[in-house]
C-alpha cells in the first residue's frame, strides 16, 4: 500500500472497530444499529447515483427501480436457496449483476436522450418496474406481489454493510480519479466537446449508468436482508427522488459530499422522530420538507459544491484556524 493511503485506511479501520465495539457492548442498541446499517446502505445507493448524475451528468429519476431489482433478486435467491453466508454473498452479487445488466439493456437506447427527457424516461422505467413488482406474484408466489415479500432471512449485519460500503466508495473513488472518470466528467460538462476530443460519449454514459445501477442493486440486496420484508411501495418513484436529493444536497460531483449527506439524511429523518416526540410525529415530513427547501435555497450548489472533503483538508484547516487564533491572541 502506498504511503498516502495509510492514514485514510487507518481511519476507516478505526471507525469500524469503534462502531463494532459500541454495538457489541450494547451502547448502540438494535434500533440505532439498524439505522446505522440503513445509513450505510443509503450511502451505497447514493454513491451509485452520484456516479451517474453527479459525475457523468446523466439525469436519472429511476434509481429506486434498480435498488428494488437488486432487493427482489437477492431476496428470491436466499428465500429459495437457503440463508447461508455463501448464498447471501451470491445473492448480493446476483442482485448487483441483474441491476447492472438491466441498466445496460435499457441504458443503451435511452441514454441517447438528453437532460430532462432522460429523467422522464428513467422515471417511466421506474414506474414500469414498480408495476412489475406489484404483479411479481404471477411469476413466482414467493415474490409476494402487492402483498409484499415476507420471510427473507435477516442476514445483513454491520460487518457486511460497512465493508461493502467501503468497497463501493473505493471503487467510485478509483473510477472518478482515472482517465475513464475524467471522460465521464467531460461528458457531463459538454457532451459535444467531449465527443470532438476523442471520447466515445456513449461508452462512458453507459459505463457510469451500469456501475451506478449495479451499486443500487447491491444496496437493495442488503436492504432486503436487513428488515426481512419487502414491499413494492419501497421502490416507487418517490424513493428515486429521495436518492436524487441526497446526491444534489451533497453537491454534484463530490463523492464525500454524497457520503456525508446520505448518512446525515438518514439520521435527520430518524432524529426528527426523536425530537418531535409521539405527539408531533405527524409533523415529521412537514418539517423535513421545510428543511429541504431552506437548505436548497441557502446552498443551491449543495453542501460541498463539487469539492471533496479530505483528511488533509480538515487537518490543514484546523491548523490554519489554530494559527489565526494565535494571531488574534
Amino acid at each position: 500500500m502506498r504511503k498516502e493511503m495509510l492514514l485514510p485506511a487507518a481511519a476507516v479501520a478505526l471507525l469500524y472497530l469503534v462502531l463494532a465495539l459500541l454495538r457489541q457492548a450494547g451502547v448502540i442498541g438494535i434500533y440505532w444499529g439498524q439505522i446505522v446499517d440503513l445509513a450505510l446502505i443509503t450511502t451505497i445507493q447514493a454513491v451509485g447515483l452520484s456516479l451517474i448524475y453527479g459525475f457523468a451528468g446523466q439525469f436519472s429519476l429511476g434509481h429506486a427501480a434498480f435498488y428494488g431489482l437488486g432487493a427482489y433478486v437477492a431476496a428470491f435467491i436466499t428465500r429459495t436457496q437457503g440463508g447461508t453466508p455463501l448464498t447471501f454473498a451470491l445473492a448480493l452479487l446476483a442482485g448487483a449483476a441483474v441491476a447492472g445488466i438491466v441498466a445496460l439493456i435499457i441504458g443503451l437506447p435511452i441514454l441517447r436522450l438528453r437532460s430532462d427527457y432522460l429523467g422522464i424516461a428513467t422515471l417511466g422505467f421506474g414506474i414500469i418496474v414498480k408495476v412489475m413488482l406489484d404483479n411479481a406474484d404471477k411469476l413466482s408466489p414467493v415474490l409476494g406481489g402487492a402483498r409484499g415479500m415476507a420471510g427473507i432471512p435477516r442476514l445483513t449485519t454491520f460487518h457486511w454493510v460497512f465493508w461493502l460500503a467501503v468497497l463501493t466508495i473505493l471503487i467510485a473513488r478509483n473510477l472518478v480519479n482515472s482517465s475513464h472518470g475524467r471522460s465521464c466528467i467531460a461528458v457531463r460538462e459538454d457532451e459535444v466537446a467531449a465527443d470532438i476530443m476523442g471520447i466515445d460519449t456513449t461508452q462512458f454514459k453507459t459505463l457510469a449508468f451500469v456501475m451506478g445501477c449495479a451499486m443500487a442493486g447491491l444496496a437493495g440486496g442488503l436492504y432486503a436482508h436487513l428488515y426481512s420484508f419487502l414491499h413494492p411501495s419501497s421502490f416507487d418513484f418517490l424513493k428515486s427522488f429521495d436518492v436524487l436529493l441526497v446526491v444534489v444536497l451533497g453537491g454534484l460531483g463530490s463523492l464525500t459530499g454524497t457520503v456525508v449527506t446520505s448518512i446525515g439524511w438518514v439520521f435527520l429523518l430518524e432524529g426528527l422522530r426523536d425530537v418531535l416526540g409521539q405527539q408531533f410525529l405527524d409533523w415529521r415530513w412537514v418539517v423535513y420538507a421545510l428543511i429541504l427547501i431552506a437548505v436548497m435555497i441557502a446552498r443551491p450548489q449543495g453542501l460541498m459544491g463539487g469539492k471533496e472533503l479530505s483528511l488533509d483538508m480538515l487537518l490543514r484547516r484546523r491548523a490554519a484556524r489554530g494559527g489565526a487564533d494565535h494571531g488574534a491572541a
Partner: protein
Amino acid sequence: MALLECRNVSRHFGGLRALSGLDLSLEQGEVVGLIGPNGAGKTTVFNVITGVFPPTEGEVLLEGRVLNGLKPYRITQLGIARTFQNIRLFREMSVLHNVMAAMHPRCGYGLVDALLRTARFGRREREMRDEALALLERMNLADRAHDKAGSLPYGDQRRLEIARALATHPKVLLLDEPAAGMNPAEVDELVELIRGIAGDFGLTVLLIEHQMGLVMNLCERLVVLDFGEVIAKGTPGEIQRNPRVLEAYLGKGVV
C-alpha cells in the same frame, strides 16, 4: 497526396444550403486561412470535417481515408482536432484535467487497471500528467494548471482550447477564431504561438479568423467563402487584390 481533402462537399439544413460543392485540400505542414463574411459557412466546414454534421453530399478524406459516416470521436482519434468559436471547455474541471481528458484514447490502461490502481495505471497517469503539464507550459498556462477552466480569463481559455486540442495528438488542427476577443498584444503573442506549435508538432493548420492582420501574417494560403461557396483561393497578396472578395466583404458597387 493531400493530407486532408474535401471533395465536392455540401451540407444542407432543411432547405438551407449552408455549404455547396466545397473543394479543399491541405498539404502536410501548411497553414491555411479560411475567411469570409459572417454566415458564409466557415464553421460549417469545420463541423463537416469533424463529423458533427456529416456532409449531405461529397466526401471528406484524411490521408486518403474517407471519413464520411464516422462519429466525431473516431475522426478525432484518426488525427483531426479543433477548437470552438464559442469556447467549449469542460468548465468545472481543472485546466490540467481538461488537457488530460483529451488524452483518454491513448491512456493505455483499462477499467480494471483504474479500479485496482495497478502499476500500469500509476505509470501512465504520471506520464500523461507530465505531458499535459508540458503542453500547458508551452501554452503559457502552467501556473493555472489547478484552477477551474471556467475561471480563466478569456484569452487563457482560448489558449487552453488549443492545448486541449493538441493533447489529442492531431495531424490536422482546426482553429475557429482563435484570436476572437483578444487585444493586439495577445494577438501578436498568439501568432508566434501558433507558428511555433505548428512547426514543433509538424501540424497542418486550417484556421478561421476575422482579424486580417493575423491571417495575412500567419497563413501561406487563403480560401474565401461566401454564401457556402468558395469564391477565391490564393496567397494573402492575391486575395487582397481580388475584386470578388472585396465585393463579398464590402458589398456591390464599392469596387
